[in-house]
Structures are given as structure tokens and as C-alpha cells.
């Protein structure tokens, strides 16, 4: 009746997961009660959960990611604590079967449910605004994609209370992840959660490639698109091309585990090397999926806060596309030590180094964007400059790892761990923090507190270096990754420094929450009245903050690169706005509960598959299909925003902008 689900699945006799589960459930209950008390369910349902508005969906992605950041960070600090304690005779406080779940969950959550959603969230919020259009190509599909990601995140978190998580690392290599060596439910949670959210990601890719290539404001040819849109395009193309490989590979592992197939097993002719190849064919493009939009954020931030256009725009685009293509040619560098031979290793090593060329060019282009500028050291600029220092070291260590004989002694070591955290934190996390601060006022109508923001930056910058610089040393000393117990006591001081670094990062995360709450409380002091708090250069700053549902009353005509900047400068010089355009009523897509309901059935089906509750799995599938059919039968797809509303909003915007630009023109 309930498959292999029994009461034993609940960790009554394991204090750490038990207490964590209780705390999380209490937090959820408190939040639910607070929302009910304030009567906010209706607002949340109509304005966010069922929204097809790219801005709202973007915000939901970011919220999901920040929640998962807390979970992923909790895993990290537990790992650091264990490695500081479990030295010599001590086994620490985490036996291997827990420690191994924790590091597997840390990696899985940080990549799939923190970094991916947050990058996709930014793409969602910003790209249609920067393209000067009203929404993405497929708004309801966009909502479905979000909820599928949330469904995956839910399943991962359920594994904490019911059953266990994978104990294989975040990529679940066979044969360890095969049934013979991982008979429990952990790997199944991992596989099912990733398959569900993987569908969401592939659909997001379809959405964004279509939007960027087919839906732009009039006059915005390819070479007039903002760089963030180019990098989002490159990232989406990578998602489209890479995620199906992940889907196929994980499906094959599922077939091995569920139906006794022999893709990667030790017997029956299975080949575990095949998994290594397939998973990294996905895995390497994945990190570029994350880092390319991050580079796009830096391009926006550096040019805005230097008061200059981005240096070498076409060169940046070429570099972006070069990285996009090259990222598919390097996957073997993740397993140089598999023994493929000198020729193969050398070719892939050189290919991996080649990616350093366009990346280096980008760094120089940002550098020369600052040259001749008027640099303002706002919080986003702190992150951009911090990135320029941090990321180049990460690149250095990356090229070292790309050298096969060097890799032979640091593969899978703490040196590797430090490298990838350096490029992900220095590259992606700093960009996300910069973008969060930069676009927050556009989303919510007020800026975040600057002082607390700088404190958060320094926590991340200092904390990161303290946490990971010692790991480079330890890696060179022979420390491998994923160790529940440390063999050499002389490594202890380094691990202690690393723990302190992690704690400082934790402080940074706490301060981020404090900053948010404080900024909300004092928001009237920092209202974004004009919609352009940073003297921006791209079209999202044309709107008020937050923009109306439909973004622009009339889609802007684009005449050249930096559409908004030239338009603004003209308006300042002439001390008047462009002529009032011809307003029309606007049709916008309807909200839809399709996403929420499909994700509900996906979660049910997923949970049932994990626990072998076959009747429930079939019910879940049938339910999901039924929702599609029901959705397909609707006759109303859009609602109309009446002309009066459009005109009223537009004229209010013009009034405010006229005043703002008039002030600017007086001060010039």
C-alpha cells in the first residue's frame, strides 16, 4: 500500500536530522500562521503564486534560492565544524553516514536549488525589461518552470524528515550510486528531484531563447541588445543543449536502480566510465550557465557605476559566444586521472585553457570600462571590484588544474574545492549580491541600506578568503575532499581558520536578512521616486519602480546601443521628453494556477516513485496530465488593461520623469 515507506523512515533516533526537521516545520508553521493572521494568502496567490508576470516569477525564484542558500550554508558550516573537530582520535560529531549526506546535499542544493534559481530569477526579472518588451514568449510556461524547480527543492528538503539523502556526492557517480552500493532511498530522492526541476530548466531555456531572439523592442537589433541579454541568451542556449544530457543520464541511472538495467553497473557489461563522460558533458556547460549571466551583471554594474559605456561591446559578445561554444569541448578535464592517455588528456587540457582567453578579455574590458570613468563605490561596485580580484585567482587555479600532470596531484583535493568555490563565489555569488542590490529598487520601489550592504560585502570577501585560502594549502599537502575525518593533526590550524571564514560568511548572510528587514522598515527614507536611482543606461530604468504589470505603456523605439542612455541624454539636453505617443489598451496574459497544480502532482508522483508507491505515482501522472488538458481548454487567455489606466500611469510617469530630467539638465 505504501511501498517501502514505513515509520522507520522518520529519523526518530537521529538527533541532528530530527531536531532540524522540527525546527524547519515550526518555522513553516509560524510563517503560515503569520500569513493567515495578516490575511495575505489571497494576495500571495493572486499576485505571486499564479502570476505569469516575469517580474513576480523572478522574485519568487530569488526567494526560493535565498531560502535554499540558508539550507546549503547550514550544511557547509556543519562540514567545516566536523573537519575542525574530527582530527586524530576524535571522530567529531557527525558519523560518516550523516557527513556523507550533508556534503552531498550541500553540493546538490547550492548548484541546483540556489545558484540556478537565482540566476534564472535575475534573467526573468531583467531581460524583458532590458529588451523593452512586456513579458517573455511563454508566460504561463514560465510560471510552470518555477513551480517545477520548487517541487524539486521540496523533495530534497523532505528527504531530511522522511528517509535519507544520497551519500554519493552531488553528482552521484556509479557504481557507488547503484542499487548494490546505495540501497536506500537517498539516491532516488536525488534523481527524482533533479529530473523534475530539470524539466523546468529546459522549459526556461526554450522560453528565454525564444524571447531574446524573437521578442524585442522595435529597433533593437542583436547588436543593440544589452550585454546582460546576450549573456542570458548564451546561458539559455547552454541550458537547452546541456540539460537534456543530464535528463538522459539520470534516467539511465534510474533505470539501473529501478528496473535492474545495466548501463553503469559492475556486472552485465555496464560501464561506469560512460556515466562520468555523460554527466560531465552536462556538468561543465552547467557552470558556464551560471557564470555567463553573472558576467552580464558585472557588465551592467561596471558600466553604470563608471558612468561610461561598456568597453569593447562587440568583443564582449564574441567572447561570450566563444565561451558558450568552448564550454562543450572541455568536459574530460574533470577526470584526467581516469587514464585516457596522454594525447586525449593533452587535447582536453589545452581546450580548457583556451576558455581562459575570452574570460581574460572580459576582465580587461571591464578594467578599461573603468578607465576614463567616474567610478562610484556603491555596494554593487564593491562586488564587481571584489570579483575582479577574486575571480582571476580562481582562473589561475583553474588553468593549473587544466594542466594534466598538475591535476594528477590535486584532483579531488581541497585545492580543487577551493578553486571551484573561488570561481563560483567570486564569480556567481558576488554577481548575484551585486545584482540583488542593483535591481532591488526596480522590483520594490526603494533601495537597500547602503552601510549594511557594505558590511555584508566585507563579510563575504573576508569570509571567503579565510574559508578557502587555507584549503589551497591543504590540497597541496595531500588533503582530499569529502573527508569525514582528518588524518594529519598539523592541518588543524588551517581548518580552524577555514571555519572562522565560514562563520564570517554566515554573519554576512545574517546581515543580509537584517539589511532587508531594516530597509523595509525604513523604506520611506530611500524611496526610488524616479525609477532611475543609479543613473542607469538600459531600458529597465525607463520605467517607474516597480514597473506596472505591462512594463511599458508603449514599447520604446530603440535607436542605437544603450537605448535608454542616449534617450535620456537627449531629453536632458533638450529639457523635454519625447512626444507623447499614441496609447492603446494593452492585452496581458491571464494568471494561471496551472504551475502550482502541476508541481503539486509532480511532487506527489516524485515522492511516490521514490518510495515505490506505484498506484500513487500513476495518480500523480494522471493528475498532471489532467491539469494540462484542463488548462488547454480555457477560452480566455488574456485580459485587457483599459486605456484609461494605461494613460493615467503613463502620464504620471512622464510627470515624474520630466521633473527629474529637468533637475538633471539644470545641474549639467
Amino acid at each position, binding site marked *: 500500500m505504501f511501498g517501502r515507506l514505513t515509520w522507520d523512515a522518520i529519523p526518530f533516533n537521529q538527533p541532528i536530522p530530527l531536531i532540524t526537521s522540527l525546527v524547519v516545520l515550526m518555522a513553516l508553521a509560524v510563517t503560515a500562521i503569520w500569513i493567515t493572521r495578516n490575511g495575505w494568502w489571497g494576495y500571495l496567490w493572486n499576485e505571486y503564486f499564479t502570476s505569469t508576470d516575469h517580474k513576480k516569477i523572478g522574485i519568487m525564484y530569488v526567494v526560493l534560492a535565498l531560502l535554499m542558500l540558508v539550507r546549503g550554508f547550514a550544511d557547509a558550516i556543519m562540514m567545516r565544524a566536523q573537519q575542525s573537530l574530527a582530527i586524530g582520535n576524535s571522530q567529531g560529531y557527525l558519523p560518516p553516514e550523516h557527513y556523507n549526506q550533508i556534503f552531498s546535499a550541500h553540493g546538490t542544493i547550492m548548484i541546483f536549488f540556489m545558484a540556478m534559481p537565482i540566476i534564472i530569477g535575475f534573467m526573468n526579472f531583467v531581460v524583458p525589461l532590458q529588451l523593452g*518588451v*512586456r513579458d517573455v514568449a511563454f508566460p504561463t510556461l514560465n510560471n510552470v518552470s518555477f513551480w517545477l524547480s520548487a517541487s524539486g527543492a521540496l523533495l530534497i528538503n523532505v528527504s531530511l524528515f522522511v528517509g535519507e539523502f544520497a551519500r554519493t556526492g552531488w553528482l552521484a557517480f556509479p557504481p557507488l550510486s547503484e542499487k548494490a552500493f546505495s540501497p536506500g532511498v537517498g539516491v532516488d530522492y536525488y534523481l527524482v528531484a533533479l529530473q523534475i526541476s530539470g524539466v523546468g530548466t529546459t522549459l526556461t531555456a526554450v522560453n528565454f531563447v525564444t524571447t531574446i531572439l524573437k521578442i524585442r523592442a522595435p529597433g533593437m537589433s542583436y547588436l543593440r541588445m544589452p550585454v546582460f541579454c546576450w549573456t542570458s541568451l548564451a546561458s539559455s542556449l547552454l541550458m537547452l543543449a546541456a540539460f537534456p544530457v543530464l535528463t538522459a543520464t539520470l534516467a539511465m541511472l534510474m533505470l539501473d536502480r529501478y528496473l535492474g538495467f545495466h548501463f553503469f553497473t559492475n556486472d552485465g557489461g555496464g560501464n561506469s566510465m560512460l556515466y562520468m563522460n555523460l554527466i560531465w558533458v552536462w556538468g561543465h556547460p552547467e557552470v558556464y550557465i551560471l557564470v555567463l549571466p553573472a558576467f552580464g551583471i558585472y557588465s551592467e554594474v561596471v558600466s553604470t557605476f563608471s558612468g561610461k559605456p561598456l568597453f569593447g561591446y562587440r568583443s564582449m559578445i564574441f567572447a561570450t559566444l566563444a565561451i558558450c561554444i568552448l564550454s562543450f569541448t572541455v568536459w574530460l578535464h574533470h577526470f584526467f586521472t581516469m587514464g585516457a592517455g596522454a594525447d586525449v588528456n593533452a587535447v582536453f587540457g589545452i581546450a580548457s585553457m583556451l576558455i581562459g582567453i575570452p574570460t581574460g578579455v572580459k576582465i580587461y574590458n571591464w578594467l578599461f570600462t573603468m578607465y576614463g570613468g567616474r567610478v562610484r563605490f556603491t555596494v554593487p561596485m564593491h562586488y564587481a571590484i571584489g570579483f575582479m580580484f577574486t575571480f582571476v585567482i580562481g582562473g589561475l587555479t583553474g588553468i593549473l588544474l587544466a594542466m594534466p600532470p598538475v591535476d594528477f596531484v590535486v584532483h579531488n583535493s581541497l585545492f580543487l574545492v577551493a578553486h571551484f568555490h573561488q570561481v563560483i563565489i567570486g564569480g556567481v555569488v558576488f554577481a548575484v549580491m551585486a545584482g540583488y542590490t542593483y535591481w532591488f529598487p526596480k522590483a520594490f520601489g526603494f533601495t537597500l541600506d547602503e552601510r549594511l550592504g557594505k558590511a555584508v560585502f566585507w563579510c563575504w570577501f573576508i569570509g571567503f578568503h579565510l574559508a578557502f585560502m587555507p584549503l589551497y594549502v591543504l590540497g597541496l599537502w595531500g588533503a582530499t575532499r569529502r573527508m569525514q575525518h582528518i588524518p594529519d593533526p598539523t592541518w588543524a590550524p588551517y581548518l580552524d581558520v577555514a571555519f572562522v571564514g565560514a562563520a564570517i560568511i554566515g554573519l554576512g548572510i545574517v546581515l543580509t536578512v537584517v539589511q532587508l528587514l531594516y530597509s523595509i522598515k525604513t523604506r520611506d527614507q530611500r524611496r526610488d521616486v524616479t525609477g532611475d536611482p543609479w543613473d542607469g543606461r538600459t531600458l529597465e530604468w525607463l520605467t517607474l519602480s516597480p514597473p506596472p504589470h505591462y512594463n511599458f505603456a508603449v514599447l520604446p523605439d530603440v535607436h542605437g546601443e544603450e537605448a535608454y542612455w542616449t534617450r535620456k541624454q537627449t531629453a536632458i539636453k533638450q529639457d523635454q521628453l519625447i512626444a507623447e505617443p499614441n496609447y492603446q489598451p494593452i492585452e496581458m496574459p491571464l494568471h494561471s494556477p496551472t504551475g502550482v497544480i502541476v508541481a503539486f502532482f509532480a511532487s506527489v508522483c516524485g515522492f511516490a516513485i521514490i518510495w515505490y508507491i506505484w498506484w500513487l505515482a500513476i495518480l500523480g501522472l494522471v493528475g498532471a496530465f489532467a491539469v494540462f488538458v484542463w488548462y488547454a481548454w480555457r477560452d480566455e487567455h488574456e485580459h485587457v488593461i483599459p486605456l484609461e489606466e494605461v494613460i493615467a500611469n503613463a502620464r504620471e510617469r512622464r510627470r515624474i520623469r520630466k521633473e527629474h530630467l529637468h533637475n538633471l539638465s539644470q545641474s549639467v
Partner: protein
Amino acid sequence: MSTVNEAPAVGLTHHGSEDTGLGNRGPQSKSIVVPYGFWLFVLSDMVLFSALFATYASLVHATDGGPAGHQLFHRSLVAVETGALLASSFVCGLAVIAAKQKNMLWTQVLLFATGLLGFVFLAIEIYEFRSMIAEGAPPQRSAFLSSFFTLVGCHGAHVTAGLLWLGTMMAQIWTKGFQPHVGRRLLCFSIFWHALDIIWVAIFTIVYLIGTLP
């Protein structure tokens, strides 16, 4: 392709300006955007099949002492199911033409024929799988068989999903008539159905033809 009366994608009422830079006239209409997005999805599906083809190629000789392709495949059966699938695609094309002409009777008849031929394909495939399992060549026997059943079975699963979609489309056309959004969906279905044909040609060649070479 777009006409002035065509519904623009996502509530866009601006009809373009004089100075349009290097050829961009603003957001494209739904009749362009929807099939374009669907083609991208089909491309991603082809990447999925590529991974399965790559796996098949790696594991084709990993028979673990068990039966190999040339001992199991029956070319005549495969020829019939290929014929059925190709005919199904042809008839689907005719159905789309009938739909453009808003001919309800022929649209439904041709869509039904599409489904029937697709069903014949599936029936033969299921028969083939069952007889292989009965002969002692189930997917659990060896890596080669695992990869064969998965590659061919994945295609079959897509055909099954396609038939479910087809049934839904037939019902929707019947109840709603030839409205623009229904027409777009039918176009997407036919893209999907033809794409499955393309993949089948690859499977037919790589798995069955090459697998039964003397």
C-alpha cells in the same frame, strides 16, 4: 509571415517604427513565436536522443555473453513498423492541410488515421519487446540490451505521449473549432510527430540496419 491582424505575442500593441535599426521591427507575432519555441524544444529532445544514441554506440558490443542485435532483430517486422510510422507522418501532413482549409470532417478523419498508424507502430514495437523478453533477452540481461530497450523505448514513449496529445487535439478541434490558438497547437503537434519520424529513421539505420549487417 505575420499579418497586421495576427495576434502579437504577449500583449504587444506597438506596431513598429520607421527607424528599426538592422531589421528588427519589434516583437514577432504568435504564429512565429509559438512554433519557433516548439522547435527549440524539439531540438532539446534531439539532444536527449543523442545522449541515448551515444550510450547505445558505447554499449552495443557489451552483450555479457548474451544475445546480440543480429540474433534478435527481425528486419521484416521493422520494415512494417517503419512504413506505418512514415505513413502516419504523411497522413498527419494531410491533416494539417485539411485544418488550414477548416475542413472538420477530413481533419478528424486524417488525424484519426495518423493515430491509427501510430498505434500500429506501437503495437509492433510492443510485440517485438515482448518476444525479445520471452526469448531471454530482457533489458536486464546486458548493457547492450539495456541501451537498446531504452533508446527504442524512449522513442516509443514519445510516440505514446504523442498519441495522447493527438487524442486531446482531436477533441479540442471538435469542441472549439479552428481557432488560431488551436491551429498553432496542431502545428506544434505535427512538428513533434515529424520529428519523431526523423529520430526513427536514425534508430532504424543505426540500430536495426547496421545491427543486422552480415
